[in-house]
């Protein structure tokens, strides 16, 4: 029972990471109906930026927040410079551009930092925490905590601030948004910035457990896709819930059923399964296409 609980908890911890990346994907999807295949690599690259600063002697938390800011700017720039020209292009062109970005960030990281793995520090204590009879890794607890704080902040931002409202409006109905004076183009860029910032946090939270290397995020991105699809790719709350569900499921299946070697195949089955059986996910809106 103890082991089981620990597995569940470990699942929640990684699930939080999936939830964050899934949320970043959903934010971009909602606004533009594009899936950002480069989301994971941008997160990975941001984590390297944090590593550089920490390696140069900067304390953890300033490096953490500075990285978030840099990732935000990076996201905005990518949208403005690279994604903007293909906004109206066919799906294939958009996918190719995103894959191009994925490849560029991956190779840049390999070029600058080499492919050898690096140790990334955790801001949380090394000793495990006692809760009753159970031992929990402080980093896992901390990561879950950080994820929850990020989610709460985002919720408050979208729910209670005029800018958050404008971003939601721009994602839903760009034409009407322009008619009330919202600069829709900038809202999209802002969405990209936020998504990149969330990704950076996810990267910095996962790096201490999986170690930092240029391919760190590829599996995580896959789980985030699965999470977003399970929750409904146009539903931020669903994506978060999906992330935690996928994390726990992955850990339990890995520990008791299929073993650790087929975890990615599990994501594949989940993705194809959800897409075929219920493309709108558990909590998504069902779309009807007019012909």
């Amino acid at each position, binding site marked *: 029972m103890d082991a089981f609980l620990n597995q569940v908890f470990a699942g929640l911890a990684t699930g939080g990471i999936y939830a964050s990346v899934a949320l970043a994907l959903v934010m971009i999807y909602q606004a533009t109906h594009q899936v950002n295949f480069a989301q994971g690599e941008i997160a990975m690259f941001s984590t390297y930026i944090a590593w550089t600063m920490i390696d140069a002697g900067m304390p953890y938390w300033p490096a953490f927040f500075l990285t978030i800011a840099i990732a935000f700017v990076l996201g905005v720039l990518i949208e403005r410079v690279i994604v903007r020209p293909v906004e109206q292009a066919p799906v294939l062109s958009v996918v190719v551009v995103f894959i191009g970005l994925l490849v560029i960030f991956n190779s840049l990281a390999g070029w600058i930092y080499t492919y050898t793995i690096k140790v990334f520090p955790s801001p949380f204590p090394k000793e495990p925490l006692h809760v009753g009879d159970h031992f929990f890794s402080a980093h896992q607890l901390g990561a879950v905590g950080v994820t929850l704080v990020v989610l709460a902040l985002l919720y408050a931002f979208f729910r209670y601030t005029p800018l958050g409202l404008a971003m939601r409006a721009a994602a839903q109905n760009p034409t009407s948004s*322009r*008619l009330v*004076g919202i600069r829709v183009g900038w809202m999209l860029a802002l969405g990209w910035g936020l998504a990149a910032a969330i990704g950076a946090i996810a990267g910095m939270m996962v790096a201490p457990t999986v170690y930092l290397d240029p391919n760190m995020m590829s599996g995580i991105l896959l789980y985030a896709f699965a999470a977003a699809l399970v929750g409904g790719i146009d539903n931020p709350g669903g994506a978060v819930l999906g992330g935690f569900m996928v994390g726990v499921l992955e850990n339990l299946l890995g520990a008791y059923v299929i073993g650790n070697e087929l975890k990615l195949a599990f994501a594949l089955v989940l993705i194809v399964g959800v897409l075929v059986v219920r493309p709108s996910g558990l909590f998504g809106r069902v779309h009807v296409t007019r012909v």
Partner: protein
Amino acid sequence: MAALLEVSKLHAAYGPTRVLHGIDFALEEGSITTVLGANGAGKTTTLRALCNMVQTSGEIRFGGVRIDGKATEDIVRLGIAHVPDGRGTFVHLTTEENLRLGAYVRRDKREVEQDFERIYGYFPRLKERRNQQAGTLSGGEQQMLAVSRALMLRPRLLLLDEPSFGLAPLIVREIFAIMRTINQSEKVSILLVEQNAAMALDLADHAYLIETGRVVLSGSADEIKQNDAVRRSYLGY
């Protein structure tokens, strides 16, 4: 009175399809002006052209300043509120959020809050439904919401695209009555595009008739009402 809006040689096109072939008209500050015409004459396109939502050429002056070629969101910021055809409701947001978006560009927070009450005064039904998803409102309520959202801008000029479309006569009358109040007590100028010519001419001071992208007739609402051709084709008596 000075002209608030002056339009000359306005052309507009959707890709290769040209819709407006150089129309001229003006709207006096404080007036209600209506643009009449049959389906496909270019009424909606005229409003869209004013907000640069279609490809246009020609000159548009608002308060003496040229606005043609400016981005839609910048034109809105000058005080032109557009109630588009189809109402443009943000269907997944609440009624109140829709209204809040109408005041998005305003910085006078306190007066915005007062304007909520003013709007709810005009349309009490919106107050009842303030926390409801706007997509679940009835057609009439959505039209009220669209007008209200536009008014939240505190516009100098209100562009109304077929506010009567698809609504019960009773609701149309209610909305038109409120338009008159807004025009008289708040000095908002209105450019109204309507298929219901009789109601539009009752409300308006001036009228333009457009056919296939050209202005074919203009004058005071009363003159237009007396015009034989208009009576036969648009008023039906």
